[in-house]
């Protein structure tokens, strides 16, 4: 079949299983947009309002489904607008393919109108990228790009396609394409016998083991294996932010979240453990605190698909580069039962203590607290929604007060901490999981970074529920100013528009909630609307997320919530 480059792009997307793409047109990508009309029955294009939204939507789609998310933009400013979303996807290993238009090949390097060196600019924030200068190479390159995005440690891949390449014609036969052949790209599978022996020895000897469950569990589909490991050897499980939902949070062996705002019980367990089994996580500074005092008594096993993560931040005894599911399946048949009753009791004591100290259960004197909003959202959505949080206090509170039972239901920008991610990513997630209830949980600050996508949500009539946790501050920054900068609130008090009027302007139903007894009604209301809906929760302005390990402090040295009457 003889096709133009633009048609080849769309044919290839369809062959890769793509059904929706998020993008914004412009001169250099116009041929591809022109070709879209031919494929509209199989390929839906979502017109965003800013290309950053397109890359976050593709990312949200990928996180919710595990499939590759696709975004499209024109050259120059269109492509540079994608970068924040690509960097976000890169940090959290999210499979995204970005297609960008480029100026025609003969004009590359002449500072032509809307020319940017996009492969150069995105080099550090993509797993790989391409500039396709010949239409003969286009189809194979797209195939390779999808393969790279979804295999190994997944990540974003960008393909820059000059306008003349989109216009050029060639013979296209997807099935006749060469198999992907990358001599330097070796996919890892299992561990060596030696490593399995070493792991089993350490696990069998341990008296105070802790599993650290990261994002890699779900990416590798090793959720059942994780649970088997924990149950067979009775090992408590601490989860990273993106590891939440890797095992049901109601499971008695799940201690909770680890790190800066994690559960004190998890952090204490890590510090006192004699064995850490780190699975698909990367010892980020937000989870380790001070590396010098991190888990000082433990031996350590670390399994990760990316060899460069091993011994990067924390030196371990048994580093294993491999696919988690495969490696755990090698370990499980030879794993002996253990009980660890004493250790589990000790952890339970810490848990009780932290539920007394850290959970917000004291009298709030009629004020609406963000934690209550999130906990009630959990209650009234039966703990079963996909939540997509933005970045800040509400994000940390979501992690604390909305326990998740299933993988890929708690989506958030973990590694990059990208404000503006939550709302567009929720749109992408809903496109990926149309039958699930999707809530964007966002702050008044972060929402204002990408709220232009309200128009996209309206135009697509996409059924996302937006919960704005409005504390009239850049809350998390204000928290740091309160705790570490003597309450000098420099540039954190925030004017916001009347969010409900704003929603009205977009034709989006809305509701303002100012007291706790309205929360159930707000959830019922959101559920009754078919299409986007915005709920503004006006909450206490100066609240602090506890517990907290100050940046760089020892992990066990947590700031705890003061008891009523105590000073912070």
């Amino acid at each position, binding site marked *: 079949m003889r096709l133009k480059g633009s048609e080849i792009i769309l044919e290839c997307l369809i062959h890769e299983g793509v059904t929706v793409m998020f993008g914004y047109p412009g001169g250099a990508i116009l041929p591809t947009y022109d070709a879209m009309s031919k494929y509209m029955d199989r390929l839906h294009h979502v017109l965003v309002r800013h290309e950053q939204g397109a890359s976050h939507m593709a990312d949200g789609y990928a996180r919710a489904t595990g499939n590759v998310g696709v975004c499209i933009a024109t050259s120059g400013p269109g492509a540079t607008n994608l970068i924040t979303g690509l960097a976000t996807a890169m940090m959290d290993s999210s499979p995204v393919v970005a297609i960008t238009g480029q100026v025609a090949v003969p004009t590359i390097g002449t500072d032509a109108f809307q020319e940017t060196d996009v*492969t*150069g600019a995105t*080099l*550090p924030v993509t*797993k*790989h990228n391409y*500039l396709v*200068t*010949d239409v*003969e*190479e286009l189809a*194979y390159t797209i195939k390779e790009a999808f393969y*790279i995005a979804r295999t190994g440690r997944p990540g974003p891949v960008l393909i820059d396609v000059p306008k003349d390449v989109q216009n050029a014609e060639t013979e296209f036969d997807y099935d006749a394409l*060469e198999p992907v*052949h*990358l*001599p*330097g*790209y070796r996919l890892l599978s299992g561990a060596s016998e030696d490593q399995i022996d070493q792991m089993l020895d350490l696990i069998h000897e341990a008296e105070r083991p802790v599993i650290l469950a990261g994002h890699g569990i779900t990416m590798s589909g090793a959720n059942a294996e994780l649970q088997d490991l924990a149950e067979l050897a009775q090992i408590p499980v601490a989860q990273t932010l993106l590891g939440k939902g890797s095992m049901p949070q109601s499971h008695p062996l799940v201690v909770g979240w680890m790190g800066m705002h994690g559960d004190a019980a998890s952090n204490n367990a890590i510090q006192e453990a004699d064995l850490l089994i780190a699975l698909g996580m990367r010892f980020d500074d937000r989870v380790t605190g001070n590396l010098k005092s991190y888990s000082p008594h433990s031996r350590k096993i670390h399994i990760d698909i*990316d*060899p*460069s993560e*091993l*011994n*990067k931040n924390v030196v371990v005894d048994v580093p294993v580069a491999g696919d988690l599911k495969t490696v755990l399946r090698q370990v499980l048949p030879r794993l002996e039962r253990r009980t660890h009753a004493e250790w589990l009791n000790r952890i339970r004591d810490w848990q009780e203590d932290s539920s007394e100290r850290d959970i917000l259960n004291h009298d709030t004197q009629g004020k609406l607290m963000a934690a209550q909003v999130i906990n009630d959202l959990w209650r009234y959505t039966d703990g079963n929604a996909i939540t997509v949080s933005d970045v800040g206090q509400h994000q940390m509170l979501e992690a604390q007060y909305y326990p998740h039972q299933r993988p890929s239901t708690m989506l958030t920008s973990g590694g990059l901490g990208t404000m503006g991610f939550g709302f567009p990513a929720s749109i992408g997630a809903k496109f990926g999981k149309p039958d699930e209830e999707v809530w964007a949980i966002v702050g008044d600050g972060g929402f204002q970074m990408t709220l232009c996508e309200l128009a996209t949500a309206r135009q697509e009539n996409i059924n996302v529920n937006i919960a704005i946790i409005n504390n009239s501050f850049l809350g998390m920054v204000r928290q740091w100013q309160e705790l570490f900068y003597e309450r000098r609130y420099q540039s954190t008090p925030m004017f916001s528009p009347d969010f409900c009027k704003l929603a009205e302007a977009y034709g989006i139903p809305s509701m303002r909630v100012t007291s706790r007894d309205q929360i159930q009604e707000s959830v019922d209301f959101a559920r009754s609307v078919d299409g986007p809906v915005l709920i503004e929760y006006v909450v206490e302005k100066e609240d602090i997320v506890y517990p907290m390990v100050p940046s760089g402090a020892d992990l066990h040295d947590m700031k705890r919530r003061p008891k009523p009457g105590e000073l912070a």
Partner: protein
Amino acid sequence: MSDIQATPGKITVVALVENKPGVLNRVASLFRRRAFNVDSLTVGRTHRPYVSRMTIVVDSERADAHKIAANLSKLINVIDVQILTDTPHVSRDLALIKVRSDDAESRNELTEICERHPARIIDIGPEVAIVEMVGTEQAVAEFIEQVRPIGIVEMIRTGVVAMGRGTRIHDTEYEPVFKKNGVAEHMNVL
């Protein structure tokens, strides 16, 4: 001359890379991004038309061999990586040094020094001479110090190229799917 460890505090890395545009940029960008301090980086062709070879010498203060190899291997266009630091290998650096030669004394001195080293005068004029010196990084450095009092006018060192002794780097009969952009006649890694 074989050197087990070329220079203390340095890590010598060899990378086989696909001979494609942009590969050198990817490698350089990686080293900058991970804050590995590059002492020298050389790229050249190999006997395989689609494979180029880099020798990179890195300061070991901020990096260890495992880190460098693991990060380099993550680049899609890097075919294989070998760390030579602790294995027997040979290495060579080449320097071109332009030295003052405007009197008999300086010319004699230069000739004498060159006789004691694997160095030769490859161009000589009434004002300056150009000397070529090939050897290990250390040997070249020592040679330069001996020549320096005569008066160095210009100088360039290529940086180290290295090869393991007895061992064999993992090699492939690699051929790209599209050959047009990586042909034997020209180097394309830039």
